């Protein structure tokens, strides 16, 4: 309860939470406010924002409602960000837990693989994965998750290294608990909080990675994603710059919200480290 109180005492953390709730609300109400397909033709192309009450944020180069695409884009960004983060954290926890718990050659092999993933620029690896497996919503989400796991793995490993010889673990071992029980039942719950906090960083990066991929037209072209819209707006950048500008602000706000919430959680859970 203390942590919750501490969280709400920080104005930045509260602002982040409000922004995040707004983005989530946009994702939920998209189907209700804009029942039509956001990628369907809605009116004349390149209507400026605020000039026609039917299209509050204007229309893009092919006459699709920008506001509708922003609302539906919130769904895509949160979906890809959330699922990719879950994948990354899951792989990271598994690799980090085994490496940290067993040590020795298991640690050596797993850390070599982690190092290989970290040496290769993650966006380049993302390009390779998309080149190989194509760019549907599912493959892009999995690919973003697969390139993001090394940092959570290192974090989990560090936690496990410091916890594996604690007394409660030794007590469990004397009671005859199996390794798997010790890893997932005893150590992991204690190692989890910093990893969960770090998930916000992974999610912020995942959203940025997907939008960059979509901007390069290498993500799924059949969904209304913010990155797609920015890429589309690039063709009319000289005059109708708003087509690119609006979705960019949406990405900025979302990533900002996620980072602020993560920062707030971090400060609330580790009050001693506040201000770092």
């Amino acid at each position, binding site marked *: 309860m203390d942590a919750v109180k501490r969280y709400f005492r920080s104005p*930045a953390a509260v602002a982040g939470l409000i922004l995040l709730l707004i983005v989530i609300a946009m994702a939920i109400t998209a189907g209700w406010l804009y029942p039509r397909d956001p990628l369907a033709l809605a009116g004349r192309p390149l209507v400026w924002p605020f000039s026609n009450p039917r299209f509050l944020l204007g229309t893009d180069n092919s006459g699709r409602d920008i506001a509708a695409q922003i609302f539906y884009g919130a769904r895509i960004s949160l979906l890809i960000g959330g699922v990719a983060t879950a994948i990354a954290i899951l792989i990271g926890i598994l690799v980090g837990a085994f490496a940290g718990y067993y040590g020795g050659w298991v640690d050596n092999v797993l850390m*070599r*693989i982690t*190092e*290989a993933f*970290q*040496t*290769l*620029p*993650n*966006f*380049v*690896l*993302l*390009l*390779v*994965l*998309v*080149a*190989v*497996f*194509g760019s549907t919503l599912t493959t892009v989400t999995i690919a973003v998750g697969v390139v993001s796991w090394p940092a959570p793995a290192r974090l989990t490993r560090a936690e496990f290294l410091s916890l594996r010889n604690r007394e409660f673990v030794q007590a469990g071992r004397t009671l005859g608990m199996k390794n798997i029980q010790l890893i997932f039942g005893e150590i992991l719950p204690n190692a989890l909080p910093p990893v969960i906090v770090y998930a916000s960083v992974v999610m*912020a990066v995942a959203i*940025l990675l997907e*939008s*960059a991929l979509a*901007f*390069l037209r*290498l993500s799924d072209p059949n969904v209304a994603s913010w*990155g797609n819209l*920015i890429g589309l*707006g*690039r063709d009319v*950048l*000289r005059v109708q*710059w708003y087509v*690119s*500008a609006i*979705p*960019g602000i949406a*990405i*900025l*706000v*979302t*990533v*900002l919200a996620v*980072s*602020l919430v993560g920062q707030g959680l971090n400060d609330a859970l580790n009050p001693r480290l506040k*201000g*770092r």
Partner: protein
Amino acid sequence: MRILTLAGRRLAASIPTLVLILIGVFLLLQFAPGDTVDAMMAQMGGGDAATAKELRKFYGLDLSIPAQLGNYLWRLVRLDLGFSSIYGKPVASVILERLPPTILLMTASLSFAFFFGLLFGVIAARGVNRWPDTLISTLGLIFYATPSFWFGLMAIVVFSVYLQWLPPGGFEDIGAVRTGIWRVLDIASHLVLPTLTLGLIFLAIYLRIMRASMLEVLNLDYVRTARAKGLDETRVVTRHVLRNALLPMVTLIGLQAGTMLGGSVVVESVFSLPGLGRLAYESVVQRDLNTLLGIVFVSALLVITVNFVVDLIYARLDPRIMAEG
């Protein structure tokens, strides 16, 4: 000498990593739909199956996968990255042509981010929790959340379209033949916006780390001693605090080298710079898998090199590291 042995040992340790990456990506690319020959046939406007078979035999694509992998690694030892059928040149020379703009861009962005990150970090830490700190920290958070490609596009709108101060893209003005200092200035003016765009997110990271590390060092005993012996605040910061506070910043350069290279893929596409990142993007679109694999190799090599240099700098900044080694 000891620095060299230490860093050299770490360099040697990265060779297995490099081999692991190459084998992994090579095997991964075997799953790719269509190979180089398919891409070539498509470019030629189609052809019959016999030609395709002959071409596959010529490029050694009819062998088993382990044999192909062995061939590839053996050629790599002799620094032969294969042949790019799209560009009609050896991959090594294609990559070598594209390397200078990327290295220039990365160096410029890194210097920009490092210098201003340091400066703003120090200013924020000096006025902790007062308005300069709040302003700088807020800006840092916003920069961190800004998608680089979007910032690049908006910078083009403001500085190239409306103000017309800077060129919107390209590496140099192809229309005019310039030499010497004028050519340098021309390239520099083309690189201002890409440098800012790529450097922005790193500026945010650096200033945050610098601020945290300054705050930590400022509370150490030896800083109190320095103050107690009557040094003014500027002296304390520049002579005593900075050197120790810099260590995490230098570590970060090594950690971020890969991210920066990845970021340049996007930035080079925004500003149509003929660099390595753009080549990576083009080779994905054109299914030039040989070139893509070559780029993977070169970018891993680049990251390893940066880390090697960082090790050297690190040992220079902090003699204790050598003593432990």
